[in-house]
């Protein structure tokens, strides 16, 4: 099995420490697993459509969750650059998924490998990197607030 088709298990290192975010990330890991399992050999396009629809849905509820947290914890104020990068990545994920969906719609779907690559890249670049920064920011803020309360 190559790295693309190997099943991923949720791992400690994926954790941002923010339960809400982590729970939703698990869904994406599942989606990635499902995609690598089902989009092999001959598969029906409706399978890919289901997966892409899930990704569209994910882009709404998950990004909403994260961006609400950013607002709540003053991410933009304190880490302007990280905030911008993060938002940019969200928007580019959405537009890539829309692109993939359009391709399916007009009957020219992207090769499954490309979809899997895209999701794998997202996991590595976004969840393991960008989201962890946000997680650390929120945790630090929460700790700060707890200390202030204690004083």
């Amino acid at each position, binding site marked *: 099995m190559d790295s693309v088709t190997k*099943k991923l*298990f*949720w791992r*400690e290192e994926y954790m941002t420490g923010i339960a809400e975010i982590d*729970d*939703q990330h*698990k*869904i994406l890991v*599942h*989606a990635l*697993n*499902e995609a690598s399992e089902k989009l092999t050999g001959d598969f029906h396009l409706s399978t890919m459509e289901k997966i892409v*629809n*899930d990704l*569209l*849905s*994910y*882009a*709404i*509820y998950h*990004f*909403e969750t994260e*961006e*609400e947290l950013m*607002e709540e914890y003053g991410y933009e104020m304190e880490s302007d650059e990280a905030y911008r990068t993060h938002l940019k990545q*969200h928007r580019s994920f*959405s537009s890539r*998924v*829309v692109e993939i*969906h*359009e391709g399916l*719609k*007009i*009957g*020219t779907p992207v090769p499954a490998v490309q979809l899997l690559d895209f999701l794998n890249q997202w996991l590595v670049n976004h969840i393991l990197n960008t989201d962890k920064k946000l997680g650390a920011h929120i945790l630090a803020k929460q700790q700060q607030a707890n200390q202030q309360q204690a004083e």
Partner: protein
Amino acid sequence: MTHERFPLAQAVHGEAIEQETVIGIKREHQNVWFQLNIYPLPSPQENAPKKLFLSLAHEVSEAVERGRDLSQTAHYDALTGLPNRALLNDRMKTALAHCTRTGQILAICLLDLDGFKPINDTLGHEAGDEVLKITANRLLENMRGNDTALRLGGDEFVLLINDLKSEDECVLVLNRILASIAKSITIGESVCTVTGSLGVTLFPNDPSDPGILLRHADQAMYKAKEHGKNDFEMFDPTLASRHRANRSTLARIAKAMQKKQFELHYQPQINCATGRMVGVEALIRWNHPVLGIRSPGEFLPLLEKDDMIIEVGNWVIQEALAQWRLWKAEGIDLTIGINIAARQLLHSGFGEMLKTVHASLPEGEANPLELEILETAALEDMNSVARLINDSRRLGYTYSLDDFGTGYSSLAHLKHLSVDALKIDQSYVRDMLDDPGDLAIVQGIIGIAEAFDAKIIAEGVENIDQIMMLIGMGCEIVQGFAIAKPMPGDKISAWLTNYNSNPIWQTARDSYPSRGQFEMLVIEVAHRHWFEQIERAYRDGAIEKGRMPTLESYDQCKLTSWYLGEGAAQHGHHSLLHAMDVNHRKTHEKYQQLCDQVARHDGISASLTLKELNELNNTLIMAIHQLRFKESR
């Protein structure tokens, strides 16, 4: 019990003894239980150095064994000796805690025997009991010490398998268990077999609560039964979490509807022959409080299979009509294209809704709504849709097929549905200048529209070349960023004023492209594509293969025949024309040179030649471009 805890030892140390002490020993495979008591004895002498104790042990085996039996029946299955349902919660808790501590995988399995009932029925209950006992033993044989096999009742068992390192390891264990269960069993003179259907869910991949984990295993077990038994089925947490997550997105969209977060933007459609704006397409946007403005492609597909698409679709019609009334008050009269999803069109209330809307229009006004049918492939009942279209056309509604030419919208639909217009999908328009295949499709669609006497509208035009190409092919109504981006309704009036008075558009309108200019554009596109084919072949390992594709030579090239004919007639006096021809000849010669180098597998020379060829071709295209604009003056 350590020696220090023996009553005698405690008493010697002067400790008080509060609990009754019962110890058990095994004698000839039998448990023998004693109750120990200790009594201090008065010393015979004052100040005696030694204290005396009386230690008594009396056998209490019968009472103890009876008590043990009672607790055994409460917690253990009398037939198989396995823990029973009463211990399920406890065992689950222990296993989950263990798994969380070790970070390994826990498999929660539900096992149901296949073919057990017939044994009970034909060989009797005793035989059935025997099978259960043997099966229980087989389960234990294939599990480790701290795993649990538990009998739920009947022929149902729960297995908790600890310390799995991977799903693969789990599969191995399960297969071993299933194989062992399926071995034949001899009872008296009969031989019988049962098999197992196993449903499994893996913690922490499935991070649910204990009760839910069991339910997941149960669901998977039913799947295993459905799929032909003697097998296991893994519960797929994706399905469950997907379901939950997607419901939550739908709920968010419903809330957005309530909170009026949707808005319509309008994109102008221009008739290039007259230069007039002929209509707009209404496009929905989600003004999301956190995510900002989201495009329809990001959320509409999520609604397409839900009735909410009908609610949203009806809102769009009402909103567009309200905008139309505002425009009317300003003296602007436009048709408004409205996207209609298949589900909405098929909905039983749709025809009635159209009637109500029509009745609400001011008397004597033409119906401004053009209904654009999306994804016609999803129209299951073509006859009723055809009827609906015919009925509502009498009310002045017009219809178009959206995204025409894509998988969703095809010729068969065109034959069945009487529509007024076809919209060419933007993907073809976008790529037609780079891809002759797309260009041919656009040309084909335009021809089909003519044959069916339908209007044709091109979506997604991004630049003036695309517009000229479309006009040249006979498509005059265009929509896209080259004209205007979608804008809020109240911006249309200002845009229109600006557009009408914009001298650039005046010139564009006046210099409506000639036949000749169109041909030159086609030639320009063809030469761009000619080079792209070369580049692609080169990238795809032409050097290794030692072969380049056979392409048009200078003599076969469209540009050459244009140069000799139209070109010479129109621009014969231009030095530009001759310079272009010299360059053109060189370009084709360069390609020949490249072919030779590739045939010799001479990669270094070939890569240099390819660079030169690229430059030559660019210069050539620039020259065609210049001649084209000379033509337009």
